[in-house]
């Protein structure tokens, strides 16, 4: 850590249709941390194909659903979850 805007790698998991449209199951994004989930989503949506993701998808941090304003910490596992369709 070298300053307030130090950037770090955030691991982002993608599933189902979101993985299809991004062409990847997992991404490693360089982002200034701390960042909110919303900022992580915005970074993913800026990637090729990312415009097909909704601006406010369901998100999880470390296996728990979290709101868009939750801060992502270094080492967190972020997951973007398409609408659930189990059962």
């Amino acid at each position, binding site marked *: 850590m070298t300053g307030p805007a130090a950037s770090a790698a955030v691991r982002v998991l993608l599933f*189902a249709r979101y993985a299809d449209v991004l062409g990847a199951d997992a991404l490693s994004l360089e982002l200034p941390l701390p960042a909110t989930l919303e900022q992580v989503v915005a970074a993913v949506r800026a990637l090729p194909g990312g415009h097909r993701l909704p601006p406010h998808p369901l998100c999880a941090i470390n296996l728990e659903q979290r709101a868009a304003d939750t801060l992502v910490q270094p080492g967190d596992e972020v997951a973007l979850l*398409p609408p659930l*369709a*189990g059962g």
Partner: protein
Amino acid sequence: MPHLTHAAIDAAALAHRVQSPARGAAVSFLGLVRDHHGGRTVERLDYSAYEPMAETECARIVSEAESRWPVAIALEHRLGRLTIGDVAVAVVAAAPHRAVAFEACRFVIDEVKARVPIWKREHYSDGTVGWVDPTAAGGVVADRPDPP
């Protein structure tokens, strides 16, 4: 026991895990792969999950039901490729009396559908595929390629 499985679900074995001489009522829910969705003929489908989160969430739902009612719950959701008529999900609620068994079984399947990160891709008889999306018009999203 894990709640996610890539093998066929054995509903009878699941029921035997929770039935006991003190529990006179067992209510089961089986979700089966249907041959139609939104007017299209389904040939098969693929279930996928965010597996560690899905396991955690299934275990939490079972705990919630078992602490709320005097009931024992068995829950399995299948992942991978399924064909028509296959059991996709099974819930068994065993309790001393039937009112509780019905209520708890219904609670578990409702919560599974609402909270567990599992997704379903349908393969239609016309060769197309779609992602099931209960929030979308028609219940399915099928991406077309981006325009060049």
